[in-house]
């Protein structure tokens, strides 16, 4: 993956830059020794690494503003970083950039149950947002699988999703307002505890902009009352087509499960070997979860099971207790770990129209043979967000490149059938060069024009999202 050549003029400014940063931040918040900047050399896309020029850890909006004003003045690129869990390289630095980490900003600022929102500093982790409102039986809905570690700042930057989006939506549907610092250090409040402002939906524009429009320091998030209960059911089928039909039939019947998860045979076998959840050895496995009171769950599951039976399942397992529910989820939740046990893997997250599921799975199977690389599929079937996991050996020369080529082919297939390159991980550097497969030049130009408005000098996370060739004129300007 190509990154822009570091600007020697910027590299030469390091001593003065560090000196200025130390005037506005405590000493331990400015990391500039080479041995220490290495801690920020990559995010969860570990195949690509580069230590930044400097890393800073501001503690509040004012400090973020001071840092950005200085970097703006020095003409130094800034790469914002949440917890560094991006699978797309969203927080990958360049050698001439300042990493701005929000990890020291993790306070809860306000909890308002009557108006059903919480305001937090953006470095707070996703799960600890729910943790802060648990005592009143509330929760924060978006639940990316990295939720133990990932920060709200990163969630907003990538518009993160999770397993329960079918019912609760993704980050943008649960974000009420932000405090954001622009690249020149100006602080702006967007949205708030009220709904739907009268002007342009800048909140919606910022969510998912991958840290390229501003640095979000505080966020007001919608919190919801927890449902009375939830219960999953597991079903196994002998073909992907049939499982896909079951998903479609459930949705058409008017039931709205909170989650519909899908695993294919390679993935089932891997997780069985790893976690021993007792899954059937079949072509396609579905986990469907519904919520409500016991009686409501019975009513919904009754309908779901009726549909499931019509399609001749090889296995149908209802949960009768919390332990059984946990066991049904065990394999799904260990799927990534299980695949990682076998080999290195690359996780994709293209989305497809649900009706294309069987075709896409068949094509991925064929491509897997052509490339000679195994692939397991585990994904959110209700919303079409796929997660093919391609296995490769990082120590084998050429395997990573082969894996990336295979991944790119899968993503192009997603676009071809009417879907998109990324459903919840973001573009980052990983899918940057595939953007031309989804967008025409004008479609990309208008997006880059939006960045021109917020960050005219293209200093914020400049080498991400857009193909380098497409953004080169703007980055140099």
């Amino acid at each position, binding site marked *: 993956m190509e990154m822009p050549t570091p600007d020697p003029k910027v590299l030469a400014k390091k001593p003065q830059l560090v000196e200025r940063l130390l005037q506005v931040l405590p000493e331990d918040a400015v990391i500039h020794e080479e041995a220490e900047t290495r801690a920020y050399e990559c995010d969860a896309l570990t195949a690509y690494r580069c230590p930044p020029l400097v890393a800073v850890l501001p503690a509040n909006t004012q400090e973020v503003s001071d840092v950005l004003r200085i970097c703006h003045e020095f003409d130094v690129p800034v790469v914002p970083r949440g917890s560094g869990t991006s699978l797309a390289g969203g927080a990958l630095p360049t050698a001439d950039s300042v990493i701005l980490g929000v990890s020291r900003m993790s306070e809860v600022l306000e909890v*308002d*149950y*009557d*108006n059903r929102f919480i305001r937090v500093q953006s470095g707070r982790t996703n799960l600890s947002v729910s943790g802060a409102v648990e005592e009143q*039986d509330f929760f924060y809905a978006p639940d990316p699988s990295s939720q133990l570690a990932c920060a709200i700042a990163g969630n907003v930057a990538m*518009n993160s*999703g999770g397993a329960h989006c079918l019912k609760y939506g*993704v980050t*943008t549907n649960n974000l009420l307002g932000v405090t954001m610092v622009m690249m020149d250090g*100006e602080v*702006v409040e*967007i949205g*708030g505890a*009220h*709904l*739907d*402002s*009268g*002007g*342009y*939906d*800048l909140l*919606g*524009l910022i*969510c998912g*902009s991958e840290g390229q429009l501003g640095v979000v320091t505080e966020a007001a998030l919608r919190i919801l009352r*927890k*449902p009375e209960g939830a219960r999953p059911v597991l079903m196994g089928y002998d073909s992907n087509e049939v499982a896909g039909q079951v998903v*479609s*039939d459930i*949705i*058409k019947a*008017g039931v709205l499960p909170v989650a519909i998860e899908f695993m294919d045979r390679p993935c089932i076998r891997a997780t069985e070997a790893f976690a021993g959840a007792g899954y059937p050895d079949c072509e396609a496995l579905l986990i469907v979860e519904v919520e409500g*009171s016991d*009686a*409501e769950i019975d009513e919904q599951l009754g309908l779901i099971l009726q549909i499931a039976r019509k399609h001749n399942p090889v296995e149908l397992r209802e949960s009768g207790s919390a332990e059984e529910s946990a066991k049904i989820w065990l394999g799904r939740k260990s799927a990534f770990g299980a695949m990682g046990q076998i080999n290195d893997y690359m996780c994709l997250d293209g*989305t497809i*129209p*649900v009706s294309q599921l069987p075709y896409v799975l068949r094509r991925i199977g064929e491509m897997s043979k052509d490339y000679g690389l195994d692939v397991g599929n585990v994904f*959110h079937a209700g*919303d*079409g*967000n796929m997660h093919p996991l391609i296995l490769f050996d990082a120590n084998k020369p050429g395997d990573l490149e082969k894996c990336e080529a295979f991944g790119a082919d899968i993503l192009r297939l997603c676009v071809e059938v*009417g*879907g*998109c390159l990324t*459903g*919840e*991980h973001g*573009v980052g550097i990983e899918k940057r060069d595939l*953007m031309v497969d*989804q*967008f025409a030049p*004008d*479609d990309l130009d*208008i*997006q880059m024009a*939006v960045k*021109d408005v917020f960050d005219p000098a293209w200093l914020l996370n400049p080498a991400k*999202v857009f193909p380098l060739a497409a953004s080169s004129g703007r980055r140099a300007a």
Partner: protein
Amino acid sequence: MTPETEEELSALIAGAEGPLRIVGGDTRPVGKPVAGETLSTAALSGIVNYEPGALTLVAKAGTPVAEVERALAAEGQRLPFEPMDHRGLLGTQGEPTIGGVVAANVSGPRRIQAGACRDFLLGVRFVDGMGRVLKNGGRVMKNVTGYDLVKLMAGSRGTLGVLTEVSFKVLPEPASAVTLILNSNDELQAVAAMTAALRSPFEVTGAAHIGGKTRLRIEGFAESVAYRAKALADHLSGFGQVEVVDAPDAVAALWREVRDVEPFHLADGDVWRYSVKPSDGPALALGLREKGARDVILDWGGGLLWCLAPNGADMRPEGLNGHATLVRASEETRAKLPVFQPEAALIQKVSQGLRDKFDPRGILNPGLMG
């Protein structure tokens, strides 16, 4: 001008020499009056793709809302955000279009629970001020590929581009719905009851206060609705007698009345709309009455206020923490008073910056949003 294809629209805009007044069905003339040649999307009509099993629908911008709703109803589905029909309130004629709903980000009572129009909008195609045909988003529910211009286009009222196609996530129409009705003396008591309901786990999908009564809606499968209605009534026993309405037509009528602000249709006066933090609703209602408001309706659990006001009165309270919009008034009043809440200087600068990029010649609904 009523182009019949996207290409024709693109050529019209590229060749336009003066300002254009962009309309769908022209049933929601909200905003500063625009002087310009009228450009209608009404002839860009028809449902392009509807997959009930995937909960997605794609339609051309000029498709009548009624046509979309009929197609969805035939499959037992609906637009979850319950878009308001502005015709009664604004005294307009014509056929509301789905593109108009998007352009004004129109949502109804269910917004409090399900989300707004923008939350269900998955993709757009539009023509910008230079005549370029552009797309963003798509027809899948999860999509973070590039910037989310879909949200930006929702509610931009034709000032950033002319919508040609929109795609939505839709949801199943619940089998059953009931409404609980309580008598509330004032807005303070009403918001307290609505807050208690919205804090409960019983999934209230509508919470409004209209004509001295507080309405709470529950939807879903029949048994589930019956269970939750009973549980919610018990939960609210401290707020007095609870009346339950469960006849489908009656429930639908109660919420149409709230959605379309029916009590103000034939009443004389300007109509203002406010979006605030729900707990600020009662104080705002009181302040509006002191300023001469003739009636106030609350929706969204207290977060949305509709105010019937004397003609020409400036009903923007000092230091309002939220948004006031002048929805119905004479052209003269709309030209005189800010129609939308004036925004912070930096937001105004960004908004103008976006307009300069999307419509460098300033010909799309110029001045409508500032």
